[in-house]
């Protein structure tokens, strides 16, 4: 070192400056666990996919970093069971179409060698993607697609954290019964309206089944093509049927168009119980006050923070990172990385069979989830989370407020909803 020339100094300094970039990266590569995330990042559902992505990104940040939160793996860096290995997400764009779901699932498994998969929001896409992962023997943890059939197929590698539409549909009818018993409201007839892909048509089936079971008369049973340019004929049928309650399962585009058409043509049921599209983050900013009084099924609402401080902490982190409120979609996708990473950590291995075995033994207590559930435990047969339940939120003053179950409600339900003409 006695001969330190200026040139050597510069070279050495440069190498030194570069070294943090090079060394930890090589190091990290050896200790990185890749998981694949399938979402509609472009296409019709791109706004939804972006929201799912935010939820997953925040979850992975919490897993990889050190956070004082009561979430699985939050207080440690990375995955403790694998010596603090970091989780890395390989993003796959389904464009909202089943054919891409399958191709992308195959791509991330065969090319990127992911050890597990999460996603894909849409039931139709999740269905084919999980068939591909079953064939390739890769664990799939889903916390956002809700068609009941997904967990009825007896797949070995597929697990679902969130409630399915059968549970949600059941909730809606239990709500109607509660409404009659406790709020002395009379409900006799329902109309069932649903989009005709995997998601909507299964909700339709469940709705019809529960309507019969709970003794409500179905006065209209309408399925329609999603992404319609015009829905006046559907709404015309609804007006003719004049139901007490509308049950609607739809994605966001149709939710916006239907709401506008309800107003325009003056469709006034006593209540609207809806799913999916009505709670997406794009819905209210687009439709504003016309969305008021609509009731949506939900697994998450910001007002849960009153009873569960964890919800508030996570929601704050989310708002700080993205500048917007955490939505239901983001909150749903948020949980899957934790469940998968926690199982990998217990398995102490990235071997698929070991991870599946660990997932089957998952037992995350209720205080470590951001939903009003008793926890996460998978049914040994269907591998559906047995504790997953839903809540109903009502849009009041352009905010989603929990209104059912009545005992955990943050606001009183407004019923019957005011006719369009009488609104300001």
């Amino acid at each position, binding site marked *: 070192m006695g001969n330190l020339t200026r040139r050597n100094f510069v070279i050495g300094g440069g190498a030194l400056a570069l070294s943090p970039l090079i060394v930890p990266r090589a190091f990290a590569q050896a200790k990185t666990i890749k998981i694949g995330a399938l979402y509609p990042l472009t296409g019709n559902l791109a*706004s939804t996919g972006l929201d799912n992505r935010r939820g997953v990104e925040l979850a992975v940040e919490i897993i990889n970093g050190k956070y004082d939160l009561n979430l699985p793996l939050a207080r440690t860096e990375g995955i403790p069971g694998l010596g603090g290995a970091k989780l890395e997400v390989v993003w796959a764009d389904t464009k909202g179409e089943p054919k891409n779901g399958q191709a992308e699932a195959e791509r991330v498994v065969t090319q990127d060698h992911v050890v597990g998969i999460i996603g894909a929001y849409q039931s139709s896409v999740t269905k084919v993607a999980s068939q591909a992962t079953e064939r390739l023997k890769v664990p799939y943890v889903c916390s956002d697609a809700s068609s009941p059939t997904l967990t009825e197929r007896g797949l070995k590698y597929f697990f679902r954290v969130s409630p399915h539409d059968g549970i949600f549909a059941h909730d809606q009818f239990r709500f109607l019964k509660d409404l009659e018993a406790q709020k002395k409201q009379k409900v006799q007839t329902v109309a069932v309206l649903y989009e005709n892909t995997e998601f909507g048509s299964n909700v339709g089936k469940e709705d019809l089944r529960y309507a019969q079971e709970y003794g409500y008369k179905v006065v209209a049973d309408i399925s329609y093509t999603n992404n319609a340019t015009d829905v006046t*004929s559907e709404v*015309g049928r609804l007006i003719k049927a004049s139901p007490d309650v509308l049950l609607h399962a739809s994605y966001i*585009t149709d939710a916006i168009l239907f709401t506008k058409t309800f107003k325009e043509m003056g469709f006034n049921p006593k209540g609207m119980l809806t799913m999916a599209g009505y709670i997406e983050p794009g819905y209210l900013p687009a439709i504003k006050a016309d969305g008021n009084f609509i009731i949506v099924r939900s697994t998450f609402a910001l007002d849960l923070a009153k009873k569960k401080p964890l919800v508030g902490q996570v929601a704050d982190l989310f708002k700080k990172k993205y500048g917007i409120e955490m939505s239901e979609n983001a909150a749903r996708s948020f949980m899957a990385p934790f469940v998968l990473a926690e199982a990998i950590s217990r398995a102490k291995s990235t071997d698929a069979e070991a991870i599946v075995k660990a997932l089957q033994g998952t037992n995350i207590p209720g205080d470590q989830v951001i939903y009003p559930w008793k926890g996460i435990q998978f049914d040994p047969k269907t591998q559906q989370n047995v504790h997953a339940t839903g809540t109903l939120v009502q849009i009041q003053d352009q905010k989603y407020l929990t209104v059912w179950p009545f005992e955990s409600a943050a606001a009183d339900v407004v019923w019957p909803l005011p006719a369009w003409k009488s609104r300001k």
Partner: protein
Amino acid sequence: MADQLLQQVVNSLLIGSVYALVAIGLTLIWGVMNVLNFAHGDFLMIGMFISFWCYTLLKMDPLFSIPVCAAALFLLGAGIYRFIISKVMKGPGLAQLVVTFGVSIFLANLAVMLWTPDFRLIEKPLLSGTWSLGSVQLSIPKFVASVGSVVVSAAVLLFLKKTRTGKAILAVEMNRDAAQLMGINTEKINSLSFGLGSALVGIAGAFLSMYYYIYPQVGGLFGLISFCIVALGGFGSIEGAFIAGILIGLVQTLGGYFFDPAYKYALVFLVYLITVWIRPQGLMGS
């Protein structure tokens, strides 16, 4: 029952006339150049976004941004013709098909990049609300869009039949070589028609933005339906496209009401298939 029937017929006409305006732009481009513009639906989307930004940034109601949309889309259409389409006109037909397809994908993704995939609505357009005419609920913005579409369609027809430039466009449509021999600058007519066709879809976009949600993929189904209308009406026929637009509106709305909403678009394409089976040249084609 009868009330809803009347309501449904009214609704069919309202949506059908807007379909017609979208399709007229497409049929004009096809008629003159034999180019199928796959980016037509995306042009509609751009028109809607221009109207949205005029409203949001300049506080300009969609009703007043119609000329802005028309002018902007004219330039976009003519520009895309000059710099992209005209280059492949000499190549094989497939190249023209692929190039407009490429433009379509490019525009949709550009819109996602520039404006995010979020849904927008023009919150308080000048025209809003509904008129109750007896039992029929008539949406005011839809009614104005519909009347506007009819007026613009008629104006286009008049322009083509009565002005020198219009006649030149029709001449090129009839026989390009003969028109060239008569001293018509066909290259100029090409970019003019492409611009004009695009301007029409821009106007349709401004009308739609008064009541429809706006997002990068909004042009998809509108584009597809307008292809169907153009083929049904007869390739290149303005009158045909207008009649076919109204017809498709009727089939879609009444079919959805009486038959089954799940199949209303299937019915639209069924009517198309039956027509081309009986009359391959379309309703007004020659």
